[in-house]
């Protein structure tokens, strides 16, 4: 039973990671990061059950709040850059080169 949850969490983490690498729209990239954070949360809650302590659930709660703060900041940045560039594509943003 535990393994099912953990496998689901690992799959979601990998899917989110692929999404971050593949997608070009900053908002969708950010959605994929949220998927990864959710994968972490699932792992925390599962381990909390596994170890019989509450820490994992508390952490999951914290992570959700942090994610909310991150969304606020991220969208503010993305909307600002859109206003000056009229595009939210990650690849268009390439004034900065190696």
């Amino acid at each position, binding site marked *: 039973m535990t393994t099912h949850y953990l496998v689901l969490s690992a799959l979601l983490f990998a899917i989110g990671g692929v999404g971050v690498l593949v997608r070009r729209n900053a908002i969708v990239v950010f959605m994929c990061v949220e998927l990864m954070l959710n994968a972490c949360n699932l792992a925390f809650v599962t381990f909390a059950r596994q170890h019989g302590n509450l820490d994992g659930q*508390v952490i999951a709660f*914290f992570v959700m709040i942090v994610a909310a*703060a991150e969304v606020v900041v991220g969208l503010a*940045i993305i909307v600002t*850059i859109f206003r000056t560039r009229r595009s939210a594509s*990650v690849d268009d*943003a390439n*004034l*900065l080169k*190696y």
Partner: protein
Amino acid sequence: MTDTITAPTIEYLLLSPLLVVFGAAIVGVLVEAFAPRYLRAAFQVPLTLLSLVAAFALVIFVVVKDGVPNKAAAMGAVAADGPALFIWGTILLLAFVSVLLIGDDFVPSAVAVPGSVEEERAVSEGAAHTEVYPLVLFAVGGMLLFAASNDLLVMFVALEVMSLPLYMLCGLARRRRLLSQEAAMKYFLLGAFSSAFFLYGTALLYGYAGSIDLSKISTSLSSVGGQDSLLFIGAAVLGVGLFFKIGAVPFQMWKPDVYQGAPTPITALMASGTLVAAFGALLRVFWVALGNLEWDWSPVVWAVAILTMVVGAILAITQTDIKRMLAYSSIAHAGFILTAVVATAGAKQNSLALSGILFYLVAYGLTTVGAFGVVTMVRDPGGEAWHLSRWAGLGKRSPKLAMVLAFFLLAMAGIPLTSGFFAKYAVFSAAVSGGAVALVVVGVVASAIAAFFYVRVIVLMFFSDPAADGPSIVMPIATRGVVGFAALATVVLGVFPQPVLDLASKAAQSLFVR
């Protein structure tokens, strides 16, 4: 489960530097809300500077009153020990000088060339950005907490408290807005990506140990059997998140972009304060939580250190932009510090390496703030002159400034009689006595490569002719003070380093609280 909640015990005195910084940030927000616009800067600057000074004084007071503490405060959330307090002092000092740079860059609108229309416009709008002061204080508070966190959840929350304001501050440069906003977006997306890795690593370690307390993870290493691969993968994924924050290769790609695009005072804060805080957290994770696992992680850190030193030094040579060059140099310096992170063997050796790292962080932090301070002074009509060709002949146009910058660059290269020499000597000798001789050889070679591009800039400044329409030099009093202080510190630490070395070794003596 009883119906009443037992109140948690909070050691307010030990946490007071942290509380002062966060408290001042909140007062700053209130000032933004209620003070009239023309008064805000007059409130914010002294408030920010005073709170940093007060926090610094409280750090000293804590040590003087009860000696170096060695306990976990606030229900085990914050580690109050020698290294934490030393790092707190360092961060507060570096934040103070960086804030002085900000005071110069945003508020009196020195960004524009004197007398231009742009300056007038900036003056009328300049007061609008006083929110940067509370944001900087939030970030500094996050740094303090990050370096002193005693469990991985506090570390994660502190990481975000530190990073979120910095993401936004990166996008606030008045000149070259597109570049700045792009830097903010890249920093944000990559930062969020890396904190997801940090978190998954935390989850795996929690699954392994059943706790996220650093010392409990350490004790579980001997008691839990049969899940070693879980532990290794968890430590590796967690390490990715931490290496990203210090900008170690292969997770360095954000650093040049962000350092270039961010407003220069913010770059100075990130290059000094964030690096110090991130090393504090990294050391805590690797030495306290995973200390008994050293044989397994040290080869990886070896490889990362070598890559970081070499890639940072080589890529710096190809740069034509002074801020990008300083960014790559900061990557290389992260690699130099990593050489001492590997050098663990026994408590005595550890405290030697730790004191070397602490001294390096102070010396490098002050030098780099000074260098970025010089960058803010050399101005083109469109803002700061970043391109190296604009710096040609600066030695003839403004010999004093060029000498100071040359001195900073020599200190970064590690020439004797500068703080950089003793700093490098401290980490490399710790690494040698920790058995990492090969690493030190690579380090010395990388230093030589790095010295090449520092000298190249010096040659460019002193031995080429200035362009006819060269950049103008703007010297506001506060920036001059910061650069002068940084230069003085670089000299003093280079000629007479013993007091700070003693302080660092005293702080490192008891090692981290477990």
